[in-house]
């Protein structure tokens, strides 16, 4: 990259000077910045128990040492941070996959990555490696390792799925993107059938844990866990912004992209690997949250238009905000039960998506 040293400022200027894109204006940009911010700031106070600022900050002392303050800092804030980053990462992965496969239906779970992670988690739960929960009494000193077991296995499962699809892609060199997508569907259903074997043959406790995990849920204890999706967001957003023009060009087909100077093979390899690993990391922590990777980019295209340098930050904002809103609803509507957020996403997302598809389009 010889251009980096030469004109970094110019490149950055060019990347971000797209705010004049048609249909995108100052009002939208302001909304896109302040709406997510407002949601992030408001969400931690809402829950089974409404927390008032007086419970968290007390005059003179700074931070209060109350039960509410502990809930706020140990449970609510990390959960909002995790949800926002995870939602943004899911959205960005969906956006990149949709561009790479030139298919508006492409999203992480369609490519088998999510079900690979779910299979990994299922294996860990079946082997009794999973921590906490009903009946499984983790020895105190082993609980940290045990808390890592399920995410680690989920990650391994996701990587396995990626490896299978990549190997297939290499074998079937020159196969169309649709073929690759179908291979993802095949891998996905193979893994799903294995998960169902685990679910069917497992005990009641295992089956319940497995089921609730595959529905996708965000529950964290402590800020350390809350930051687990930050690397995913960082990777996906960096890649999406660096490859914004390439993603635009690939929409026109491989021939046009290649003859405009895009190194397709390198781009595909890098983006596929980066996105899949980010998804794996998120899925390992939050479970396979379906639909968000599909819906966030579609909503964002309506707001920001098709150009990826603008679409990428918008998708991140929409995905992150949507997941925080849904997660807040998940822990509130059925209180004191904590619904898996995946249920809320699908419940609210499906009608919204239908409306999006059939609403008259502005030209």
């Amino acid at each position, binding site marked *: 990259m010889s251009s980096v040293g030469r004109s970094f400022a110019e490149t950055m200027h060019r990347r971000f000077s797209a705010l004049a894109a048609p249909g995108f204006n100052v009002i939208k940009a302001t909304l896109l910045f302040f709406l997510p911010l407002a949601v992030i700031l408001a969400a931690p106070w809402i829950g089974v128990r409404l927390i008032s600022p007086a419970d968290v900050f007390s005059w003179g002392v700074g931070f209060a040492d109350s039960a509410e303050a502990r809930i706020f800092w140990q449970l609510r804030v990390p959960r909002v941070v995790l949800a926002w980053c995870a939602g943004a990462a899911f959205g960005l992965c969906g956006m990149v996959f949709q561009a790479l496969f030139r298919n508006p239906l492409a999203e992480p779970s369609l490519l088998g990555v999510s079900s690979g992670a779910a299979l990994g988690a299922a294996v860990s739960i079946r082997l009794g490696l999973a921590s906490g929960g009903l009946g499984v009494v983790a020895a105190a000193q082993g609980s940290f390792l045990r808390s890592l077991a399920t995410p680690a296995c989920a990650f391994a499962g996701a990587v396995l799925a990626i490896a299978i699809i990549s190997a297939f892609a290499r074998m079937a060199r020159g196969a169309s993107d649709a073929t690759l997508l179908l291979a993802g569907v095949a891998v996905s259903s193979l893994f799903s059938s294995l998960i169902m074997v685990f679910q069917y043959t497992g005990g009641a406790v295992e089956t319940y844990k497995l089921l609730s995990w595959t529905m996708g849920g965000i529950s964290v204890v402590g800020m350390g866990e809350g930051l687990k999706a930050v690397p995913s967001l960082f990777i996906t957003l960096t890649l999406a912004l660096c490859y914004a023009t390439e993603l635009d060009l690939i929409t026109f*087909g491989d021939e046009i992209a290649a*003859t405009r100077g895009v190194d397709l093979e390198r781009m595909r390899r890098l983006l596929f690997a980066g996105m899949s690993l980010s998804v794996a990391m998120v899925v390992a922590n939050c479970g396979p949250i379906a639909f968000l990777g599909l819906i966030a980019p579609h909503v964002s295209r309506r707001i920001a238009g*098709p150009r990826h340098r603008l679409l990428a930050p918008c998708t991140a904002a929409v995905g992150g905000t949507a997941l925080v809103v849904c997660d807040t609803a998940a822990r509130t509507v059925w209180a004191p039960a904590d619904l898996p957020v995946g249920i809320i996403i699908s419940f609210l997302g499906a009608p919204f998506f239908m409306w999006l598809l059939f609403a008259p389009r502005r030209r």
Partner: protein
Amino acid sequence: MSCDRDAGYGDNGIKITGLSVELGGRAILSGVSFDAAPGSFLYVIGRNGAGKSTLLKCVAGVTGGYKGELLVGGQEVSSLSARDRARRVAYVPQGSPGDVPYTVSDFIEMSRYPWRGIASEADDRRAVSGAMELTGITAFAGRRISSLSGGERQKAMIASAIAQGSGIILMDEPTTYLDYAHQVETINLMARVNREHGVTMLVVTHDVNLAMGFSCKIVAMSGGRVEWTGPPSGLLEPGWLNRIFGVQFDRYSSGRDGELPVLVPERAAL
């Protein structure tokens, strides 16, 4: 036109020697050799399946894995990086992009991709606006490509190739899907780009009259081989047209001095 300029293969000449391509075990091109002088205008003609499009894709770098020598501006195509290649060769594929949501000006701006970090922003802007003015599409720069008519789309594609700023432009059947007015417009546009900007044009067509009307060299292909090369008038010698296209042609004089006759394929009596 600069037909008689020596083929120095400096900046934007093409030299092809013994080019062979196999796809799926079938020979698509076998031993194709010809060259295009810098700034010349070549038509590649032949029947469907003669290998014309594959030839063009090889030069564009889309189809790799060829045997033989294929030089653009003195450099082997397969040894160039995608960006280096794109700075030398622009390609207008057959048909047009489908339902893409981008505006015309977005698309033409994107064609400056191979110059990123090399050309200045002012250069980019000049290239984009120049290409849009030359092709006469400034009026619908803000419209989505998916909302354009076939003729307008073709102009946008050509504008994008011009904005790319390469010395060679390859076009695959640029007039096939156009009405007469847009055909004439496209032909004049190609001629202007060639004459005024010195761009080497390599155009694939099965329309023999198009090739006869404006070119300094015709490469006629059949069955993956070069059947005949030469100036348009040479094609009228007995036997060649039948060998290339597999039909007999009637000739009609256009009635204007110095113009080659119009060729109409002979039809069986009904």
